[in-house]
């Protein structure tokens, strides 16, 4: 039973309500489309999709407030014989997914106007969101894999959604190819872990491995391969090649969706799997994955930021910077070396992903807005945009500076939390991470401010007229900006939940 603040109690399976609502909404969209496939009322579709995701978000928020699955109300809720688990962490991430989904659905209303197959678009977004929220709850490698695929497969379709646009198709192809390979690698990794442990439930794996590891080589390769599979989802090195292509070619709302929600989903899985199934003290003799993640984090953030600094297209710059942010978030598992305040480090990563969910989605939605206006894609094309659309540009400025870590949005505090997490680990590799975080943040400020400069300071090169101000896109962009800004003063509201949720994992 889920104890709630109200007097009534709900059955256990209701803990999965957010995922169920998302899935049902997706099916409802299919049904609506089936009633009249040629119907041209996108508002119905966008409305249902938004309603579903907002409902899921509200329910998640309610659970978070009520303490569903958290230690204070009796601990994690295990469902289907421990295949799925609902606890603070899963709800926390589900909240990220649902809110990003809601933003994307609202924004897509305008972005998609006049395009075919809208119902499919919304349905795929919601199915992917379902997959993500199941990923957050996955408590076994089997459900983890299935959920990961459930979120990946619709994403491939979404990226290639503009099927007459060569860029979109190319992006979809590359995303799919690398996704397929990495899922094969992940599957093989899981099979090797199964070979060593004989079980797939996370806690049971740790138990089995704790009892003695026969074949350390097989297990080590398996763990590395599992890590590789997660690296794909989080767009970290070495499976990051798809990210710039996919984010650039995809419709911009989809880019925002993938680069924030999908990435966060990869992270929640990585957190849970590595903390629960492969505790460092158990697999210490086999493989030091904390070291592996340290290297990955260093390479990822440096590569992402340096590549972003050399781009001349805004969307691609955001794509690379999103790789850089994956590197930051990886710090959370890279510093779990025992001396660190582990739940704090993990919580810091969660917080960063939370803030990132809003600011990055917002930034991509702004790009969507620009695409909607038909302005070009390079930095120069953004010149003087602020004269025509000051409100949207103001929002974009908040996103970008928050991404860079200036205290104008929640991004500064989450980066600070990451920084102090590295310091609390107090090892050489952690200090290295801290240094890399600082240097990369400084570098990122450089390229983010190029956009700001273009929008506000430069004079427009050609003359274009912003003719319309699409309500949906504006609402989403401004909404994301408000949340990003509010996360600065109201950071405490979120951080307590995050740290509690992280602590429950250890």
């Amino acid at each position, binding site marked *: 039973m889920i104890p709630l603040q109200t007097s009534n109690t709900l059955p256990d399976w209701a803990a999965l309500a957010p995922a169920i609502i998302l899935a049902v909404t997706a099916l409802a969209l299919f049904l609506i489309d089936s009633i009249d496939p040629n119907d041209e009322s996108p508002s119905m579709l966008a409305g249902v999709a938004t309603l579903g995701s907002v409902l899921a978000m509200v329910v998640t928020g309610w659970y978070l407030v009520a303490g569903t699955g958290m230690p204070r109300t009796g601990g994690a809720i295990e469902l289907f014989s421990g295949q799925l688990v609902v606890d603070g962490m899963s709800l926390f991430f589900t909240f990220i997914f649902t809110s990003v989904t809601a933003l994307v659905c609202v924004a897509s209303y305008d972005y998609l106007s006049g395009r075919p197959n809208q119902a499919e678009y919304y349905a795929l977004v919601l199915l992917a969101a379902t997959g993500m929220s199941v990923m957050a709850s996955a408590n076994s*490698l*089997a459900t983890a*894999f*299935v959920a990961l*695929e459930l979120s990946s*497969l619709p994403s*491939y*379709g979404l990226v*290639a959604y503009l*099927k*007459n646009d*060569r*860029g979109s*198709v*190319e*992006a*979809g*192809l*590359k995303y*799919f*190819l690398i996704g*397929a*390979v990495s*899922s*094969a*690698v992940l*599957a*093989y990794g*899981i*099979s*090797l872990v*199964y*070979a060593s442990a*004989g*079980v*797939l439930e996370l806690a049971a794996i740790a138990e089995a491995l704790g009892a003695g590891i026969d074949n350390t080589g*097989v297990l080590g390769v398996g763990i590395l391969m599992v890590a590789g599979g997660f690296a794909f989802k989080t767009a970290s090195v070495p499976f990051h*090649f798809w990210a*710039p*292509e996919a984010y*650039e*070619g995809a419709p911009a709302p989809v880019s925002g969706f993938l680069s924030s929600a999908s990435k966060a989903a990869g992270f929640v899985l990585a957190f849970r799997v590595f903390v629960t199934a492969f505790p460092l003290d158990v697999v210490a003799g086999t493989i030091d994955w904390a070291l592996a993640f340290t290297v990955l984090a260093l390479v990822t953030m440096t590569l992402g930021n340096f590549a972003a600094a050399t781009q001349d297209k805004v969307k*691609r710059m955001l794509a690379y910077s999103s790789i850089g942010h994956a590197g930051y978030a990886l710090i959370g598992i890279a510093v779990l070396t025992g001396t660190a305040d582990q739940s704090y480090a993990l919580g810091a990563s969660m917080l960063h992903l939370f803030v990132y969910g809003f600011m990055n989605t917002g930034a991509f939605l702004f790009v969507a807005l620009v695409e909607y206006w038909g302005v070009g894609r390079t930095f120069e094309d953004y010149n003087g945009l602020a004269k025509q659309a000051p409100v949207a540009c103001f929002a974009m400025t908040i996103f970008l500076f928050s991404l860079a870590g200036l205290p104008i949005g929640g991004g500064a505090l989450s980066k600070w939390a990451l920084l102090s997490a590295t310091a609390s680990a107090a090892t050489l590799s952690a200090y290295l991470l801290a240094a890399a975080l600082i240097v990369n943040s400084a570098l990122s400020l450089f390229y983010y401010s190029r956009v700001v400069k273009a929008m506000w300071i430069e004079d427009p090169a050609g003359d274009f007229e912003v003719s319309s101000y699409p309500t949906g896109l504006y609402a989403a962009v401004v909404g994301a900006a408000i949340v990003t800004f509010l996360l600065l003063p109201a950071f405490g509201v979120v951080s307590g939940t995050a740290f509690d949720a992280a602590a429950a994992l250890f």
Partner: protein
Amino acid sequence: MVPAEYYLLLSAAMFCIGLFGILTRRNALLFLMSVELMLNAASINLVAFSLQWGNLTGQVFTLFLMALAAAEVAIGIGIILVLYRNFADIDVTKPTTMRW
């Protein structure tokens, strides 16, 4: 009973063949087939060790793997189809609208 190492070797060989195919083939369909080979390598492991450990977890997961592989192919073929429509080719190295 066949020793577990044999299965491991077989699956590793299959996985490597798939990997080799991915690295060398430029045809998107062959690429897909190579991926399927890798997934099947995983399935072999799972089934073999399901027998070894005496539980059904591995076999059940294999069923899921099959389903997912099929879904992946369905999506993949769709993408390859639009690829062909846009580029008149299914060579994965051809589309270079964006810088790699």
